[in-house]
């Protein structure tokens, strides 16, 4: 549905500051009907990337295709027409204060020259869809943040777009409202088959509704793939920094203090982190290890979570036993397609679980 090829965006130097390359050599492919998340720190280039999709930002280099049309090749008038099939919602809603809820949702249709009667036929069901039928005559100033964003969503859907772009649409909302808005977006995605591209700096948003995700840093996509994979096997430090707080891969400090990096001299037992994904999350691996390899698996820390409806867990264990038995056990875990990572070695003297 959306294909970005080698897109680069450089903002020209202005008033003292040098030129800023906000986006460099970015390629993305977003399939029809998917919810694609883009996460990155502030200033990573997320907004710039999103805004190149509807050409609010003209790329310095590269091509942007939406629904088979190369937007970079269009005339101004053609581009305006193409934008009717790309809806957009914003962090600060960007509703017209002088128009009622109805008037705001009707605006894109008015701009497209749709007759009044037809506008009504489109706007009313949309207000129903977002749960604001009773607020039709109210002004934005009379609404809560969540309600404003619902108006924003209804407005973005008015021209029956195929793509919805969301620029931090929940970042100005409280957690509860955020969840409601995200569920509304997921619901719209299912019901209308709408392709959604959303950018956020909050990993929880990605975890909640995205199918695939790209991690943006310094204007580059440093990692992308199905959300589950990114959570289960984050590759880069930036991705880890996003993922770790949510799925708690990190050891609590009290346990971390009992780890040493070097192995042999410490003489302690290896401490490994096993990552369970999908169906494997419920496998009884620990008891199998003990039985088959005759080692003790001393559980330090563990957690089971759910990402995109699939179970996902991590378990940190200290393995106690003969060196070759431990080697065999690790190999066995890898064979089972579980993530295995040696975190370090337990400082001798601590054998009992304390965490």
């Amino acid at each position: 549905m959306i294909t970005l090829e080698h897109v680069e965006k450089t903002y020209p130097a202005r008033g003292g500051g040098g030129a800023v390359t906000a986006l460099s050599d970015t390629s993305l492919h977003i399939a029809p009907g998917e919810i694609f998340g883009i996460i990155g720190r502030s200033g990573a280039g997320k907004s710039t990337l999103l805004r190149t999709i509807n050409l609010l930002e003209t790329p310095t280099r590269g091509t942007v295709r939406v629904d088979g049309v190369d937007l970079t090749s269009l005339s101004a008038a053609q581009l305006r027409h193409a934008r009717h099939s790309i809806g957009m919602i914003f962090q600060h809603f960007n509703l017209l204060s002088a128009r009622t809820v109805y008037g705001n949702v009707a605006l894109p249709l008015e701009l497209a020259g749709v007759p009044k009667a037809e506008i009504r036929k489109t706007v009313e069901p949309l207000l129903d869809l977002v749960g604001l039928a009773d607020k039709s005559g109210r002004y934005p100033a009379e609404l809560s943040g969540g309600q404003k964003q619902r108006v924003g969503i209804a407005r973005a859907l008015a021209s029956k777009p195929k793509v919805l772009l969301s620029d931090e649409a929940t970042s100005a909302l409280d957690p509860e409202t955020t969840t409601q808005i995200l569920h509304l977006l997921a619901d719209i995605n299912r019901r209308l088959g709408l392709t959604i591209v959303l950018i956020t700096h909050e990993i929880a948003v990605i975890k909640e509704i995205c199918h695939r995700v790209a991690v943006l840093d310094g204007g580059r996509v440093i990692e992308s793939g199905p959300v589950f994979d990114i959570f289960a096997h984050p590759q880069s430090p930036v991705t880890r920094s996003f993922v770790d707080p949510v799925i708690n891969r990190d050891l609590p400090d009290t346990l971390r203090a009992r780890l040493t990096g070097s192995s042999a001299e410490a003489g302690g037992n290896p401490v490994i982190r096993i990552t369970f994904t999908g169906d494997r999350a419920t496998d009884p691996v620990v008891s199998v290890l003990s039985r088959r390899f005759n080692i003790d698996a001393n559980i330090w820390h563990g957690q089971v979570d759910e990402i995109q409806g699939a179970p996902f867990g991590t378990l940190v264990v200290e393995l106690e036993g003969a060196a070759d038995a431990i080697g065999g056990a690790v190999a066995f875990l890898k064979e089972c397609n579980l993530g295995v990572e040696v975190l370090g070695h337990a400082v001798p003297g601590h054998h009992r679980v304390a965490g």
Partner: protein
Amino acid sequence: MLSPDIIALLVKATLDTLHMVAVSGALGTLIGLPLGVLLAVTGRGELLESVIFNRIVGAVVNIARSTPFIILVVAIIPFTRLVAGTSIGTAAAIVPLTVAAIPFIARVVEGAVREVDRGLIEAAQAMGATPLQIIVKVLLPEARPAIALGLTLAAVSLIGYSAMVGAVGGGGLGDLGIRYGYQRFLPEVMLAVVVVLVVLVQIVQSAGDWLARRFNKRHLKV
């Protein structure tokens, strides 16, 4: 107390003043409003960026704005004659008043339009709006409260200016005040003129405030 004759003169002068302010205000808005919008949207980084146009028009507006009104009146007398056929009287006074109102209103409107949240322009662009649609459907409606206040300010200034053209034979309240109050030394006429001017300004200001409040949907009680 004021004699019936003087009262009749006062009424006539008030109507003349209202006439001058209304006509010059209307003409000034007719030209100043689009000019102000153009100034706002042609600025650097704006919707229809055109820096050269913006600089030139901006410079002309600044020159007109910084010329003291009384000098402007005298300076454009040839132009006034050309347009009104005369350089004295109410009709002639409307010319310099309009010339002064245009840049004033243009700047006020420019400021009001520039105040509109850029996010709204961006949202409209994302919807595929043309620049003209953005001006008509987004910028002007959103700037309406500020424009109403700006035009009120312009009207109040015009009432003051219209009293000044009285000094150069323009007619209206200023003219009455000068000829009767000052030259014939009738302080009660001068006082009456001032009272009428104060009342006029109060009425215009209150009406403008009321209108701006009505237009403003940004701070509603929930």
